[in-house]
């Protein structure tokens, strides 16, 4: 089982990112569950959501305490939240950032999801959409296939720019 924890801020689409990723994994023929951790969070507060992907049906409903991978959709949450908490040894960290991030003991990746979204003018009420570009990055990291990513995005969104930003993130992420 592959377990992913996504950190974001309320209103940024972190829950949708989890749902998109689960849907893409599901389109790959895998079993997948996506669950938000709903707290008393409000728009702008740090939030987490979870994705599990496996070849067998998934019976676990509790939160992910030891993820294989951590995704940070808003780098500013790292100022107040220990995003590495419980991350497995040698686990992956993907940060939405223009700049490389160093996490000793872990494999880190960065890609400017916000910049990619803004280049396509993809924003809701001024908030750049980072979850659909994130799906492109997830495909580049081999978590899901890029074909399933585009399929999942088209199932959930009519705006074709969402596919374009996924393509851009796929190209830009260096692995």
């Amino acid at each position, binding site marked *: 089982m592959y377990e992913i924890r996504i950190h974001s801020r309320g209103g940024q689409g972190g829950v949708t990112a*989890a*749902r998109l990723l*689960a*849907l893409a994994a*599901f389109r790959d023929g895998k*079993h*997948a*569950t*996506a*669950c*938000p951790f*709903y707290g008393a969070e409000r728009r702008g507060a740090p939030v987490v959501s979870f994705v599990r992907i496996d070849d067998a049906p*998934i*019976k*676990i*409903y*509790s*939160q992910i*305490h030891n993820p294989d991978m951590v995704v940070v959709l808003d780098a500013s949450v790292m100022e107040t939240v220990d995003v590495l908490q419980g991350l497995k040894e040698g686990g992956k960290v993907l940060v939405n950032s223009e700049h490389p991030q160093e996490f000793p003991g872990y494999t880190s990746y960065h890609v400017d999801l916000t910049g990619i979204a803004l280049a396509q003018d993809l924003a809701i009420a001024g908030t750049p959409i980072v979850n659909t570009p994130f799906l492109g990055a997830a495909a580049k990291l081999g978590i899901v296939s890029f074909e399933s990513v585009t399929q999942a995005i088209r199932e959930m969104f009519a705006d074709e720019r969402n596919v374009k930003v996924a393509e851009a993130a796929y190209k830009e992420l260096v692995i």
Partner: protein
Amino acid sequence: MLMISTGNKAVAAAVKQAAPSVVAAYPITPQTEIIEQIASYVAAGEVETEYIPVESEHSAMAACIGASATGVRTFTATSSHGLLYMHEMLHWAAGARLPIVMANVNRALGPGWNTWAEHTDAFSQRDTGWLQVFVGTVQEAYDATLMAFRIAEDERVLLPVMVNLDGFTLSHIMQSLETVDLGDFIPANRLPYAIDVKNPMGYGPMTGPDDYFRFRWDIERSMRDAREVIRETEEEFARRFGRKYGPAEEYRCEDAEVVVVSMGTLGKEAEVAVDILRKEGIKAGSMRLRWFRPFPDLDLKGREVVVIDRDYSFGFGGVVAASLKAKTGIECYNVIAGLGGQEVTYNDIADFVRDRRIGEEMWFGVSE
């Protein structure tokens, strides 16, 4: 069709296919997604349903009672305080023998204000005469909702059915869902004594002790008959659609020496714990109780039993453990866990089994 869905949307998808004539509802977290989805089906003309947005849950159930009394299929959904606000009307719906189906997304009761999963809301309505089923997966939320209409409307039952799913843990998780081509699985609703809306008239509904007593006995007879109707319905569902359900879902129970009894999503998490315990040489099994009313006969003889109650009856004990003891005489290790959405993992459940002390009660994380 195979898709990915939340628990809430799975319930809404089943309701759309059952196509009730009336849905009357009031929003409450974490149920709201169900009625939003149904409202959008109605707005898009995808289902022939009159959607009545009411001003409270009490009114929602009152509207469902009025609609159902005219003989039409009726649905609503609620959670927690919304369910409690319906309380008087829940007794009325069952007493009037109205086959209303309701989804209750199990949520803790305030104060303190808490929107996470707990079963006390449903259990506090256990004596209203409603049938209650608890589900453990998104697929089961869909399947149980479809079956609920058929069971409720069966002439041998004619009682309302409450389909319970864990707040957030199941209502908001995304899992795979296979929808079915329903065909004639749910026969047309035929209420034998429907109100004639074309010829309205009023009666004094006073009922003397003798008739009243007979009506109550008739409810209990139907509850007893409901066991057979549930069995038939679940068998027919399996025959047509290939998914089998029963009064409890048993996992590795055949040779089990210790059985974990639980309800809702904890019952699926318990299966993971059972696999871990088996690897350690502990012959464990899991029994996820699905039906709470009518309460099923469970075969637990000769096994040690660990009951996880995601509920509590203050001054008495865990409701499931107490029910089990009353019905079977079995003394268990009663773990109170998961109240207000408390995190309970498969490792925790495995610990409950390893550390069991039969005859005792333990509040997870707070008592020794």
